[in-house]
């Protein structure tokens, strides 16, 4: 498989603070690759570096066989971008937004017009063709932004938190569309802090924290490698005392957060049997997921 994005040892700092600190990424054609990390981990900065919108302080970068940032313009001809914040043109209709955006790629009006029906269908916006942007819901705006990113039929699509702020229905529709794009052979690079999103969509993902890449693999491998396979969440007012007395006895690892104890185990049966005898405690037994890995690797404290 050929690499369509490759970054070696990227560095970027602002005002003496390393925002991106030695990140290396190789993404192959057709992959859906996720960048995960708490706020301020350097996800958006990494995307902007890869697109050649800002210059790295150090490192080597190639995007679709073009050296970036020097030849970023040529590379961006075949790239689509869904930004974190909506920046559709509020004065234009849905169709006009696509037309005007296509022109930035040097496309002819006739060429763009020919693509608009398919783009609107992809975005479920056929009936909104002539609607003004302020009349659209948040989900519609996101879908239009996704359609806009496809106007030039790009090989790679960058998506910066594509589903932030959307309700579950809208989010599921976006996920479905992103899967269709991967099925068509497009390469996707997305940032998110929704673990279920990353786990469902991404073939591989990287976890960034404070500008460093702290893990990189398939979602399944990350879970298998970094965490015990079973999790028992124990809830209740008396959880802290219970955890202090008993958790270490039944769980390989546990963490208490407020009135919840997260117990990580290979075999949950002894713990479950014990909990059945403790009527005051409620519990949830589930397989370990990416969020557990994420919290283990990046910690539970707030990042603001």
């Amino acid at each position, binding site marked *: 498989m050929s690499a369509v994005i490759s970054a070696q040892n990227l560095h970027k700092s602002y005002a003496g603070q390393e925002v991106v600190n030695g990140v290396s990424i190789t993404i192959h054609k057709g992959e859906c690759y996720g960048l995960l990390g708490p706020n301020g981990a350097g996800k958006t900065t990494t995307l902007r570096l890869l697109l050649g919108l800002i210059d790295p302080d150090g490192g080597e970068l190639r995007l679709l066989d073009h050296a970036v940032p020097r030849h970023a313009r040529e590379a961006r*001809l075949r790239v689509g971008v869904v930004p974190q914040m909506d920046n559709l043109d509020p004065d*234009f209709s849905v169709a006009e937004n696509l037309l005007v955006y296509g022109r930035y790629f040097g496309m002819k009006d006739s060429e763009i017009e020919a693509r608009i029906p398919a783009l609107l269908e992809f975005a479920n916006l056929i009936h909104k063709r002539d609607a003004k942007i302020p009349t659209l819901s948040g989900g519609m705006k996101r879908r239009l932004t996704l359609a806009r990113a496809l106007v030039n039929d790009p090989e790679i699509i960058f998506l910066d938190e594509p589903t932030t702020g959307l309700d579950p229905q809208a989010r599921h529709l976006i996920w479905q569309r992103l899967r269709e794009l991967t099925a068509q052979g497009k390469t996707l690079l997305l940032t998110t802090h929704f673990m279920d999103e990353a786990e469902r969509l991404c073939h591989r993902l990287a976890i960034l924290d404070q500008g460093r890449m702290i893990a990189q693999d398939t979602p399944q491998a990350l879970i298998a490698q970094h965490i015990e396979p079973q999790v028992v969440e124990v809830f209740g007012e008396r959880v802290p005392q219970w955890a202090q007395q008993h958790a270490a006895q039944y769980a390989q690892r546990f963490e208490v957060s407020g009135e919840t104890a997260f117990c990580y185990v290979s075999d949950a049966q002894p713990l479950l049997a014990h909990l059945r005898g403790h009527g005051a405690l409620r519990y949830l037994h589930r397989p370990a997921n990416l969020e557990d890995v994420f919290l283990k690797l990046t910690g539970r404290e707030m990042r603001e």
Partner: protein
Amino acid sequence: MRMNPFAPPRLSLRFVPIWRRHFLVWKKVAATSILGHLADPVIYMLGLGYGLGSLLPQMEGTSYLLFLAGGTVCYSTMNSASFEALYSGFSRMHEQRTWDAILNTPVTLDDVVLAEILWSASKSLMAGAAVLLVIWLLGLSHTWLSLWTIPLALLVGLCFASLGLIITALAPSYDFFMYYFTLVITPMMLLCGVFFPVTQLPPVLQTVSAILPLSHAVDIARPLLNGALPSHAVLHVAVLLGYTLAGFYVSLVLFRRRLSR
């Protein structure tokens, strides 16, 4: 590896689709915009021209109304470009994030800034044409030479768009623009011979006036409306072009720094 923010502008035709975007937005409000371009000079010229003009027998050998018309062509085009480059430009850069959207395509910041300047100057061109139409309708000027005020309007537009974008590049918010209008645009209007001849000012202010770009525009416009060729036209055009190029370069450097964060 690092791009130098002081590098000379890299110009290309990629500004065209951006200019067309601004034009398409304008087309949606064209009626009000044209009305504004027409109403503003009419109100000024009729109010000041007839009101003040009735007290003044003649000004530099013409009616006060025609004297004022020459100034109005220039200050009206200055205002047009300034408002577009400051308020609308800031809205596109900061508020609506239109620039961010455009910069994700194969278009560079240099193209975006060039398009802003050319679009603001296009607004000036419309404003200048509107003033000239009013001048003709009022029967103030009867010379084909007055048509030269149209390319002049474009040049004044380029000049004040470029200068205005420096302020846009520095602005933290819309409030910042009040400084520019109060400290730069209003004095420019009062010192550059729009309403009265510069020779009425004390010598120090006359020197200041000679440095300001609007004076040079007025010195071209006024004779043209009166059917005469302006003296030192090359110098005046050169000064306006100089401000344009300097403003373009400085604003571009500032935008490169602002947007590389």
